[in-house]
């Protein structure tokens, strides 16, 4: 129940990858036949990815994952446009791959605006418009949030960016494969995605770059990826990413419908059986698999430890699970008091989850929360 953290590689995907570890291992940069095969499969994979997001094949660049794609988009666009301006607009609830890169760029002299979100985690597109200045060179807003699952109005934000002639990047790491994406319809210029979030391999990602977008390289070296991203291609990884994305998009409508039903039953069940609980994130505009609930008077890591004993894997926005003092920046940004942010539980459903899994969680959680509340000095008692 922690599919937003990572997912298992599907059997069909592993099968598709297998030959490229050994028998078809050729370096695409070489000239002999086995290398030609490698080049061909990379190009057909590129086309598959392009089709999945409504792009052209020559706008797809393979990377080592979501983190590299986000770093490349922010640093690359900021640097390439440094003569024109330096201002970057992003949101307060981005993944750390964006936020920490933005903070690094701030230190390098690029001013950054971090837009707030409402208490359901949604950004007002009008606020993006208001934040634009003459020197803004990039707007980066995530498609959907990794913690609370809230989906942003990407299309509106994209058209605002385009009205001002500013490139628009979106971190779609949590969204890709799970909800429909179209770089064309949504006016997206750069898009990051990561294979292991949709049953593909870890260490494999994509940055989509719309033709004509000014962006510097992040990695220097060989001439791979049309001299834009150096490094010998991760052949099995590329095949795995493309195969996994192809399957995810093919099955998306059916699968997301089923997962959404499980999600809604889980949310309703938890809110009903556990008093003093609240849903974090948007009630409807949220990722099909995301459940994020805060339980008052208890701390998240304790819940996770007890859930783990029942064989349930989950995650929390509490500080104590990460070794820092502050709870999740996302939960604080939607206005949760610290105690409620510490008491959050994230369950993320994905391919392979069943009604039975939901039953297991619904049976386990109320007792676990009750047990921890009985120890808690904050709990006012059942009767209240």
């Amino acid at each position, binding site marked *: 129940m922690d599919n937003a953290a990572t997912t298992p590689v599907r059997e069909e995907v592993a099968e598709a990858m297998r030959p490229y570890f050994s028998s078809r291992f050729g370096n695409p940069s070489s000239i002999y036949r086995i290398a030609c095969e490698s080049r061909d499969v990379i190009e057909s994979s590129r086309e598959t990815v392009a089709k999945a997001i409504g792009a052209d094949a020559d706008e797809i660049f393979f990377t080592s994952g979501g983190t590299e794609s986000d770093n490349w988009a922010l640093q690359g666009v900021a640097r390439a446009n440094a003569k024109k301006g330096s201002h970057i607009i992003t949101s307060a609830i981005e993944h750390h791959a964006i936020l920490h890169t933005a903070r690094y760029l701030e230190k390098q002299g690029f001013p950054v605006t971090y837009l707030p979100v409402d208490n359901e985690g949604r950004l007002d597109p009008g606020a993006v418009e208001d934040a634009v200045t003459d020197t803004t060179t990039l707007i980066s807003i995530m498609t959907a949030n990794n913690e609370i699952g809230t989906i942003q109005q990407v299309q509106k934000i994209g058209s605002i960016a385009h009205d001002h002639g500013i490139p628009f990047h979106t971190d779609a790491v949590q969204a890709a494969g799970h909800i429909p994406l179209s770089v064309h319809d949504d006016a997206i210029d750069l898009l990051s995605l990561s294979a292991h979030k949709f049953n593909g391999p870890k260490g494999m990602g994509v940055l989509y770059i719309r033709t004509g977008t000014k962006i510097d390289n992040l990695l220097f070296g060989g001439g791979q990826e049309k001299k834009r991203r150096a490094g010998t291609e991760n052949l099995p990884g590329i095949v795995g990413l493309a195969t996994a994305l192809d399957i995810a998009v093919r099955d998306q409508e059916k699968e997301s419908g089923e997962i959404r039903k499980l999600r809604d039953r889980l949310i309703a069940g938890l809110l009903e059986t556990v008093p003093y609980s609240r849903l974090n994130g948007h009630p409807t505009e949220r990722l099909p698999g995301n459940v994020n609930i805060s339980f008052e008077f208890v701390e998240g890591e304790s819940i996770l430890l007890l859930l783990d*004993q029942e064989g349930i894997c989950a995650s929390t926005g509490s500080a104590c699970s990460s070794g820092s003092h502050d709870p999740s920046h996302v939960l604080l940004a939607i206005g949760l008091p610290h105690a409620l942010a510490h008491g959050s539980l994230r369950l993320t459903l994905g391919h392979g989850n069943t009604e039975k899994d939901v039953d297991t969680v619904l049976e386990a959680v109320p007792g676990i929360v009750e047990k921890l509340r009985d120890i808690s*000095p904050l709990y006012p008692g059942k009767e209240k």
Partner: protein
Amino acid sequence: MYSEKVMDHFTNPRNVGEIEDPDGVGEVGNPVCGDIMKIYLCIRDDVIVDVKFQTFGCGAAIASSSMATELIKGKTIEEAWAITNEAVVTALDGLPPEKVHCSLLAEEGIHKAINNYRIRNNLPPLPEEKRNDEDPTPAVDQR
């Protein structure tokens, strides 16, 4: 990530609850940091004859609270005051470095409850050493 002893004290915490009309009470921590401990003492002739606690916090905080109450039960006030968070950590067969600060809660809670007892009995409170609350990885393995 946690020792068997930590998991034992976390899943079956000893001495949970409240004492009615306690001789000393201490509450430490705050909801911002994500951990709060409340400790109740029953004291007869300078000996802690009963102790109860309530803790809001992570596994390490709950296990430390439980172990600390076990360590001070039956001890004199002076002996209980001398119990450090390192002693609690040792008794738990260790905590992950980033979790050691959670055990400070127990030491501070005991000190606060003992001073509360002293004040109630018109004795001057002992100086409570406020230990680093900022650094989440305190002195375990510092070189």
